[in-house]
C-alpha cells in the first residue's frame, strides 16, 4: 500500500512543490488541502499516514490543526510535520509543544523533507 499523505498549505505552488518532492521519494497518494478548515473536512474521509502542514493560514491555523489532530482519538498517532518560514519561530515552538513530530523551515531542502518523511513513515509502520 502506498502511504497516504495530506498536505495542508494555502499556496498552491508550495503544495505542488511539496507534492513533487514527495513523489520523487516514493510512490504515495497525496491529498491537498488549501486551508486548515479544508483539512478538517478531509481528515475523516480516509486514513492518512502522514500530515504536512503550514502554520500561517486563514481560518483554522496550523497550530489549531496540530492541536486538533494530536488530541483526537483517531488521528493522534498520525505523524505530523510543520513546514514554515523561519519568521514563525515562536509559532513553530508552540507547534512542537502541541505534539508535532518535526518541522522543516521554508525554503526547504528537498532532501531534508524527504529524510524527515522517510523517518516518520518508517517509525509509524515498523515492519
Amino acid at each position, binding site marked *: 500500500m502506498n502511504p497516504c499523505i495530506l498536505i495542508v498549505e494555502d499556496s498552491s*505552488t508550495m503544495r505542488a512543490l511539496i507534492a513533487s518532492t514527495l513523489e520523487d521519494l516514493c510512490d504515495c497518494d497525496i491529498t491537498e488541502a488549501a486551508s486548515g478548515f479544508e483539512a478538517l*473536512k478531509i481528515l475523516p474521509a480516509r486514513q492518512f499516514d502522514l500530515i504536512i502542514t503550514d*502554520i500561517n493560514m*486563514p481560518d483554522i491555523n496550523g497550530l489549531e490543526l496540530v492541536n486538533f489532530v494530536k488530541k483526537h482519538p483517531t488521528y493522534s498517532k498520525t505523524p505530523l510535520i510543520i513546514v514554515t*518560514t523561519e*519568521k*514563525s519561530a515562536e509559532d513553530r515552538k508552540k507547534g512542537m509543544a502541541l505534539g508535532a513530530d518535526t518541522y522543516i523551515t*521554508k525554503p526547504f531542502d528537498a532532501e531534508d523533507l524527504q529524510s524527515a518523511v522517510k523517518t516518520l513513515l518508517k517509525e509509524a509502520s515498523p515492519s
Partner: protein
Amino acid sequence: MMDSNQQKATIEFLAEGEEILEGIGNNLVHLEEGIGSARINPEIINGIFRGAHSLKGLSGMLGFTKVSELSHNLENMLDSLRLGKLKLAPPVLDCLFESLDTLNGLILKIGEEGNDDLPIEDALARIEAVLHADTEGAQEESLLKTCNISPAVIEVLTEYEEHRLLANIEQGDHLYKIRISFDLATFDQDLQKLTAGLSEIGEIITTLPSTGDSPESGIQFTLIVGSQEEQEKVVSVISAFESAEIEEINYAPVKDSEPPTPTETAPARGSENFVSDIKGLTRTVRVDIGKLDHLMNVVGELIQSKDILKANIKTLRQAEAQAGLANSFHQAVEVLERKLTELQDGVLEVRMIPIGQIFNRLNRIVRKLSHDAGKQIRFATSGEDTELDKMVIEELADPLMHIIRNAIDHGIETPEVRKAAGKQAEGTIELRAYQEGNHVIIEVEEDGAGIDVKKIREKAIEKGLVEEDESMTEEETLNLIFLPGFSTAEKVSEVSGRGVGMDVAKKNITLLGGMIDIDTEPGEGTLFTITLPITLAIIPALIVQCTDQIFAIPLNAVTENLILPRQSIQTIEQREVIKLRGRTLPLIRLQEAFRLPGDNSRSMEKSHIVVAGLAEKKIGIIVDDFLDKQEIVIKAVGRTLKGIPGIAGATELGDKQAVLVLDVGALIEEATRKAVAE
C-alpha cells in the same frame, strides 16, 4: 538548467505571484481608504502580510533571490505593522505601494526573461527607513496573564492571534468565549454561517477545533470573539445554534491607557468597518489561458463539422428515397447544435473576467503618477463588474494605462493652474465600463484642459505628418495624435517598463477589433471612448465573395446587406456614396481596396453592399455576392499578411477553405483617410 519540475513550478509561481500581488494591491487600496478611521479591519493588514509571506517562501524555493529578499523585508515590516509595533501612517502606506510596484516589476521580468535581475536597493532602503522611524516596543506579554483564558487556548494562538487578543483588551472591548458543537457532515456550512454572523458584530480572534464528546460524529469549536457589543447581542447571533454556549472572558483593566472616547476614536463597529472575509473551501481553479484557447478551437472545429453535416443533410433531403434517413439525421444534428451552443457559451463564460481587475491596477498607477507630477487627482471608477474575455482584458491593460498616463501628464492641470481657471484644485479622472449589446464600452473622462486642436495641427505640420494647406475637420485633426511618431514626449514608461505610445495604444485596440474615439472641449476636459467586442474567440460572420476570393466579415460589425441597382451609386467629390434613409453612406470597393485581379465590379448591373460600422461610423463595402452566415474562429495571420490594414485575421470554413477576416474598423479608417487625401 531548469529541470521540468522547476519550469512547471515557475509557471505556477508566476500565476500565483501575480494573484498575490493583485490581492496585496486591492488590500492596499482598502487600507488607504480606511487610514483616517481609528479602526482598520486587522484582516486587511494580515492579508497583505500573508501575501508577502507566501511570496517570500515561494521565491526562496525557486531561487528568485531579489523577490525573496524584498518580500522578506516587506514581511518584516508588515509583521511589525500587524503586531502593532509599527503605526500605519501615510509614509508607511507609500512605502507599501512602492514596494508593490517593485515586486510587480520583478515578477514581470521573471515572466519575460526568466530572471529577477533588477535593482531593489531603493525599495529595501525605503523599508529600512520606515522601520527605523517608528517602532514601538510591545509590552504585551504581561497583559495576557491578566485575563482568564485557559492556557490550553493560549498555547494554540499564533503570535498574531495573541496580538489581536491584546489589541482587543487594549481597546476595552468585551471578550467572549463561545463553544459550539457541529455534526461532522455539515460543520463547514454551519461554521461559516456562525462566523459570518459574528464577523458583523466583532472580530473572531481564533477558531479552535477540538474533538468534543463524540469524536466519531461531531466536532467542537471554541471561538474567541472581541466585540464592543454586550453579551445579549452576541447571544442573538449564536442563538440559531442549539449547542452554543457563551462565556465572557474577564481581564484586568489596562492601566495608563485612556478608555477610548466613542465620539472620535471608536466609530460603531458595523459591517462596513468589518467586512467579513470568510474564505470557505476553495471553489475556484486556475486555468492556463492557453488551455482555454485550445478548448475554444476544438469547439470551433466541432461547430464546423456540424455545419458540414447540416449541408449534407440538405443534399440527402433532396433525394426523396432517403427522406426518412434525412429526417433522423436532421433531428440528431438539431440536438448536436443545441449542445454545441451550450458548450460554446460555457467555454466563453469561463474566459470572461470582470474588468475591475485592471481598474484596481490603474488605481495604483494614478496614485503614483499624480503624486510624482504634483497634481491632485481623484480617480473614480464604475462598472467594475462588466465582463470581458480574459484575452481582451490583458491586451487592454497597456492602452488604458497609456491613456490614463496621458490624462495625468497632459490633461489634468496643476492645482495652481486649475484654481486660476476657476476650477477645483483637485482634478477628476473617471473610468467607466458598461455593456452595450455585443460590445463593451470603456470611457476615460477627465476634467482637464482639453486638447488644443490648433496645437496638434501645428505640431503635425512641423513633423511633416500633414501638409500646411491640407484641410481637415476637427475630428481628423484630433486623430493625428494616434499617428506613429506624433508624440515627442514619449519615453519608456516607468510604470509598465515598456514604451507605449498613443499609436501603439490605438493599434492594440484595433487589433482587438475595437475602436477609439476622442471628444474634447477646451477648458472642460477630454473623453476617450473605447468600443470593444465582448469576445474574440468565436464569432458569427457574414461570408462574402469578391472576384474569386472569399472573405468573412464579423457580424457584430454588420448592420445590413443591400442589393441596389448600379445607378443608385452616386459620386460626390470623387467619392462613391449612396443615400441611405436620408444619410450619405461612403462606399469602398473591396476589389479595389485589396487590388484583387478579375472583372471589375463596377460593370455589374446590381451592387451588393454590406453596411458595416462600429458605433457612429459606417461605410458600405461593395462585394460581388453574399454567400452565407457562419460561426468562425479567428486565427492570427502569418507574417506575410500581418500589417496589411483591413485584415483582422484568417479563418477556416466548413470545407477547410482558408479565408481572410476583414477588420471593419481599419477599413473605415482607410476610407476616411483616402477621402482626406483626395
